[in-house]
């Protein structure tokens, strides 16, 4: 038997869907270039703040948000991936081991993207706010990484979406709905995850946002 249980707290869900919107807007404004880069920078700063928030939330947030809940060694990941092909997969209230791997991968790739962006220079009209602080070789290296890493991010996003659809269609397990509503059916013998108060999330977000503002507006002066 199952019952409906809240597994994703509001901060995780808001993080997820604002990241979706912001990655799309960063991608589009980055490719457009020129004056769009003004918006590209703003969108990138928001992503940076979100990522820092998510790292803190992964250490001090709700149970299903914590890295300790979904980061596993290669043996667990491999065993889980085998069970995926075998048909019967163990139940996870939060992220399954492969999903956990994807989250870490995307957080790292996006952190690389946002950090290199701070130093990037398009050689025409836009320079990241920290470009003046770094030697030219770093600026050109980071700009190149920024331009190439986006393709790796796109590939991961595509894989991520395909995986969600695979679960929906093949495994008959809707992962997308719970990321919107927060709740899903959980077997009776699984305890409900403990969720941390969103007030704590608001404080963390305010702190990392202040740090980002300092980093891009005040520190470069």
């Amino acid at each position, binding site marked *: 038997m199952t019952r409906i249980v809240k597994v994703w707290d509001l901060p995780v869900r808001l993080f997820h869907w604002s990241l979706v919107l912001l990655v799309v807007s960063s991608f589009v404004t980055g490719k457009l270039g020129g004056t769009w880069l003004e918006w590209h920078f703003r969108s990138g700063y928001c992503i940076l703040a979100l990522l820092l928030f998510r790292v803190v939330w992964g250490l001090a947030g709700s149970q299903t948000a914590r890295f300790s809940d979904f980061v596993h060694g290669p043996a667990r990941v491999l065993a889980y991936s085998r069970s995926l092909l075998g048909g019967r997969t163990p139940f996870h209230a939060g992220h399954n081991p492969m999903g956990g791997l994807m989250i870490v991968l995307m957080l790292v790739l996006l952190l690389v993207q946002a950090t290199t962006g701070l130093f990037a220079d398009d050689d*025409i*009209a836009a320079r990241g706010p920290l470009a003046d602080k770094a030697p030219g070789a770093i600026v050109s290296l980071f700009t190149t990484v920024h*331009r190439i890493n986006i393709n790796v991010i796109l590939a991961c996003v595509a894989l991520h979406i395909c995986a969600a659809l695979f679960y929906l269609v093949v495994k008959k397990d809707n992962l997308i709905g719970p990321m919107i509503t927060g709740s899903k059916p959980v077997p009776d013998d699984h305890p409900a995850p403990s969720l941390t108060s969103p007030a704590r999330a608001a404080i963390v977000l305010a702190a990392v946002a202040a740090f980002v503002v300092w980093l891009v507006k005040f520190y470069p002066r």
Partner: protein
Amino acid sequence: MKKLAIAVLGLAGVVSFSAQAQLKPEDAIKNRQAAMKLVGYNFGSVGAMVNDRKPYNKDEAIRNASRIDALSSQPFEFFGAGTDKGDTKAKGGCLERHGAKFTAASEKFQAEAAKLAQVARAGDMAALKAQFNATAGTCKACHDDFREK
């Protein structure tokens, strides 16, 4: 005999050099990068003014914009044969393989650069900003097509 051979070879070298009357490819590459850098330096200065990152100064804007205009054809004299290899980000043989398209891109840029110099002299900030953006579009179009990432 040996001395004669060296003398002949040396002479042949001098003759072929002066017949080409050209720079060595690596010097051509350095020159075009230097020219682009100067364009970039002046363009960045105008950009900082129109985007409020530094105070607008009409004389400085005029100076920057007329230098861009004066330099706008300079880099493109250094894209000849043999300059596709070496310490360069230009995509293989800009002029040799993409002649018409590359030249068209450089001419668009030169036309916008000439307008930029005119507009700077008029001293209208809004017009300068618009013309700056139009010019930046021609830089980007060429870099997207002809410059490695």
